[in-house]
C-alpha cells in the first residue's frame, strides 16, 4: 500500500510499561519500517515529560498537557482535546488515526473528532470486560458510542473479538456482526527471550511472573504451591512481581516453612524478565481473566513449558504441546502442574525447539503487515456522511442516542469555531520528518569537531 501518515492515540504509552504501551510502540516501529509515517499522541507524565519527544526509530510522540486521573487514564471530557488534536493532525498531514485501549478516553475522543478533518479511524481493543457491574455498563456504553462511527476495529484475540462485538454492539441492522472487526494478535520480539543452553539438574523450577493481585489468581497459587512442594521434593518456585497479595504469599511461606522452596523476588524490571524466566523450566499462570496473555508467550519463547488456567484468550495463543490447561480450581491446577513436572522430568519438552516454533508463530513485522491490510481497506472504503453518522448515533438507544448526538453536533460547532479562531493558514506545517542519514551525518560531524 502507499505510505500514509498514521497517528496512534492512546493514554497508555511510554514511559509507562505494560502490554498496551509495548504494543503501540512495536506496531509503530514496524509500520515505520514499512515506510509509513507514524506519530503517537498521548498525555503528559509528571514531572516534565510534556511536549514533543522523539523515540527510536524516528517515532514522534506528542505528550499533551492532560493530567491522568487514575491508572494513567485521563478524564473523558469530549471537547478539550479537539484544539490540540486538530492542530496536530493538520500540521502532520495525518490520513488515519489508530486509537488503542477501551479505557483510554484520548483514544475515544480521537475517534469522535477525526471525521471533522476527513481522517479515517481504526480502534484496537486490548482487554476483556464483563457486563454486570456499574463500571462495566458505563464504559461499555461509552465504547458502543465511540465504535458506532469507527471505520475498523481490531481485537487481539478471538475471545476479545466476541467480547468487543457484544460490548460495542458491533452488529448491523439485521443482527449480523459488522465486517470491519478484525483479529490481529499481539506479538513479541523472540530475540529478547532466547532460552539458556540446557543445563542438567534434578530440580524443576516453576516460575511465576505476575502482578500479585486477585485477578491474577494468586489465591490458586497460594493453595497449590505447598501441595506441589509436598508432593515433589525436587521442585522449587520462583515468584516475580509485587502487589496486594504478596502478604498472603509471604504468610503462607512463613507458616509452612517453605522459605528454601519458594523464592520471592519482588517487582522485576522489564529488562530482567528474561533472566527470571530462564531460571525455570515451567511457567505457571493462574490468571482469572486474560485477553491475550503476553507473559505466557514470553515464557514459552524463553523455552519454558506453560501451565495456565483456561480463561479468556489464553487457549488460543499456543499449540497444545507447549501448554497444559487447568480449570481455575485448586485440584485441577495441582493436576496440571504435576503433569507438567512429569513432562519436564522425562525430557519431553525441548526449550530450543519451542523457541524456534514461537519465532514462526508471532512476529511484529507480520502484525504490522496485517494491520496495514486493515488500514488499506479503511482508506479505500467510503467515508460516512455527517447525516449518516447522526442517524447511526441515534441508534444507540433512547437515552444514550440523543446524548451522543448532542455531543456530536456540539463538536461540529466547536470545530467550526476553531476553524475561525485558529485558521489553517496561520499554522506551521511539518515539512521535515526524521532523516536518519542526515542524523548520522550530523553525529559524525559533531564527533569530528570534538576530536579536533
Amino acid at each position: 500500500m502507499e505510505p500514509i501518515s498514521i497517528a496512534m492515540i492512546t493514554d497508555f504509552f511510554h514511559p509507562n510499561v505494560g502490554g498496551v504501551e509495548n504494543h503501540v510502540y512495536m506496531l509503530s516501529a514496524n509500520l515505520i519500517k514499512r515506510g509509513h509515517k507514524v506519530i503517537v499522541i498521548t498525555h503528559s507524565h509528571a514531572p516534565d515529560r510534556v511536549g514533543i519527544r522523539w523515540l527510536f526509530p524516528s517515532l514522534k510522540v506528542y505528550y499533551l498537557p492532560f493530567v491522568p486521573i487514575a491508572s494513567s487514564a485521563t478524564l473523558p471530557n469530549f471537547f478539550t482535546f479537539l484544539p490540540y488534536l486538530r492542530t496536530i493532525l493538520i500540521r502532520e498531514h495525518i490520513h488515519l488515526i489508530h486509537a488503542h485501549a477501551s479505557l483510554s478516553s484520548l483514544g475515544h475522543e480521537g475517534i469522535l473528532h477525526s471525521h471533522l478533518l476527513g481522517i479515517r479511524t481504526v480502534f484496537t481493543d486490548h482487554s476483556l470486560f464483563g457486563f454486570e457491574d456499574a463500571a462495566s455498563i458505563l464504559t461499555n456504553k461509552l465504547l458502543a458510542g465511540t465504535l458506532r462511527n469507527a471505520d475498523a476495529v481490531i481485537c487481539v484475540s478471538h475471545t476479545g473479538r466476541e467480547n468487543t462485538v457484544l460490548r460495542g454492539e458491533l452488529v448491523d441492522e439485521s443482527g449480523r456482526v459488522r465486517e470491519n472487526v478484525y483479529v490481529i494478535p499481539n506479538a513479541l520480539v523472540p530475540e529478547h527471550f532466547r532460552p539458556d543452553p540446557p543445563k542438567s539438574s534434578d530440580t524443576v523450577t516453576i516460575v511465576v511472573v505476575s502482578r500479585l493481585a486477585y485477578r491474577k489468581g494468586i489465591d490458586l497459587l497460594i493453595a497449590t504451591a505447598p501441595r506441589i512442594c509436598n508432593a515433589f521434593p525436587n521442585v522449587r518456585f520462583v515468584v516475580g512481581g509485587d502487589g496486594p497479595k504478596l502478604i498472603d504469599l509471604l504468610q503462607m511461606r512463613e507458616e509452612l516453612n517453605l522459605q528454601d522452596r519458594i523464592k520471592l523476588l519482588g517487582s522485576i524490571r522489564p529488562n530482567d524478565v528474561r533472566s527470571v524466566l530462564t531460571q525455570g523450566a515451567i511457567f505457571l499462570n493462574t490468571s482469572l481473566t486474560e485477553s491475550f496473555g503476553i507473559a505466557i508467550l514470553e515464557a514459552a519463547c524463553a523455552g519454558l513449558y506453560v501451565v495456565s488456567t483456561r480463561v479468556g484468550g489464553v487457549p488460543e495463543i499456543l499449540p497444545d504441546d507447549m501448554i497444559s490447561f487447568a480449570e481455575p480450581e485448586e485440584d485441577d491446577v495441582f493436576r496440571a502442574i504435576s503433569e507438567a513436572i512429569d513432562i519436564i522430568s522425562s525430557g519431553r519438552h525441548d526449550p530450543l525447539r519451542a523457541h524456534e516454533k514461537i519465532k514462526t508463530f508471532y512476529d511484529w513485522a507480520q502484525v504490522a503487515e496485517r494491520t496495514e491490510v486493515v488500514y488499506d481497506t479503511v482508506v479505500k472504503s467510503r467515508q460516512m456522511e455527517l447525516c449518516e453518522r447522526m442517524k447511526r448515533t441515534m441508534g444507540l438507544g433512547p437515552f444514550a442516542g440523543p446524548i451522543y448526538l448532542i455531543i456530536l453536533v456540539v463538536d461540529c460547532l466547536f470545530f467550526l469555531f476553531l476553524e475561525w479562531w485558529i485558521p489553517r493558514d496561520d499554522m506551521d506545517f511539518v515539512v521535515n520528518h526524521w532523516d536518519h542519514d542526515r542524523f548520522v551525518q550530523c553525529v559524525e560531524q559533531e564527533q569530528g569537531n570534538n576530536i579536533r
Partner: protein
Amino acid sequence: MPSVNFSNSRRQFKLPVIRMSSGNYHDKILWKRPQHSDSFISPGSFLSSLRKNPNFRPYTYWHLVSLSLSVTQHLAMIFIFISVFVRLKERTLDPRLLVWIASTCFILGYVTWQVLDCLCKRPRQGHADRAKNVKSSILIFLSLMSLSPVLRTLTAATSSDSIWALSASLFMLNAVLADYSSSVTLYGPVNERLTSVLSMNAAISSSVVLASRLPDDPAVFALILFSVQAFALFPILRRRLQTCTVVFRAVFTWCLSLAAIILTMPLSQSVAWLYTVVLSFVSLVAPAVLVWAQKYKNEIRGSWDVAVPRVNES
C-alpha cells in the same frame, strides 16, 4: 456470518439458558496465520462460549410478597410514628399514656424474643444476661428522661419548614437503608449490615428534630422513647420474626398496616388513603412488577468473565 440476537424477546424468558452452537476451539487459534482474512468470522465457533442467564431462577409472585412483608412492616411503623407525633403535637394524646403503651410494647416484644429463642433452640440467655438487659433498659429510660428538656430545645430555633423537610428526608433514608433481610438464612445466622445502623441513626435523628416541635418535656420524652422502640428495637425483632411462618408474619403485617391507617384516618383522610395505596403497592403491586420485569433479564456470560477460583478449604 452468525447473527447475534440482542432483542429482549419473550422467548428468553421461556428459555433461560441458550447455548449457542457447540463450536470447537480449533477455529480459534492465533498462533497459525489464518487462511481467511483477519475479519473472517467462523460461524461454528463465534460466541460458542456465550451463555445467557445461566444462573437464572425465576421468582414466584407469592414468594416475593412474603419477602416484601418486612418492608411493609417498616413503612407501617414509620406511618404509625408520624400519626403519634401529630397527636402529641396537637395534644390529643396524653404523653403518659404513650409511655405506658411503649413500655408494654417493649415487654411484649422482649417476651416474644425470648419465646422465639426457645423455639429456635438457641443457646438460652442466662439470668445474668437478663439482668443486664433490664439494667440497660432502665438506663436508657432514665437518660432519655433527663435529656428530654435538652432535646426539646435542641433544634427549636430552626423554622418548621426546615424541620419537616429534614425529617421527611431522614425517614426516607431510614426506609432505604434499613436491613429487611432475615436474621437466619439457609447458611446460618447473619449479622446486621452496616447500613442498618445508619438507618437507625437517621430515624432517631429525625425524631429528635421532630421533638423540638412538641409543647412540653413529657411529650418529648414519650416520643423519643417510642422512636427508640420503633426504629432501634423493632427492626431487630423484625429480623428475628422473619424466621416465623408466613401466616403469622402476614397477620402481623396486616395488623400493623391497619393500625397505621386507622390512626391516620381521623387526622387526614387523604393521607390515610395515600398510606393505603403505598402499603398495598409495596406488598402486592411491586412484587408483580418485579415478576413481570424478569422477562427483560438478559445476563450475558462467557469466557471473558473473571473466573471464580475454587480453593479447597483447609
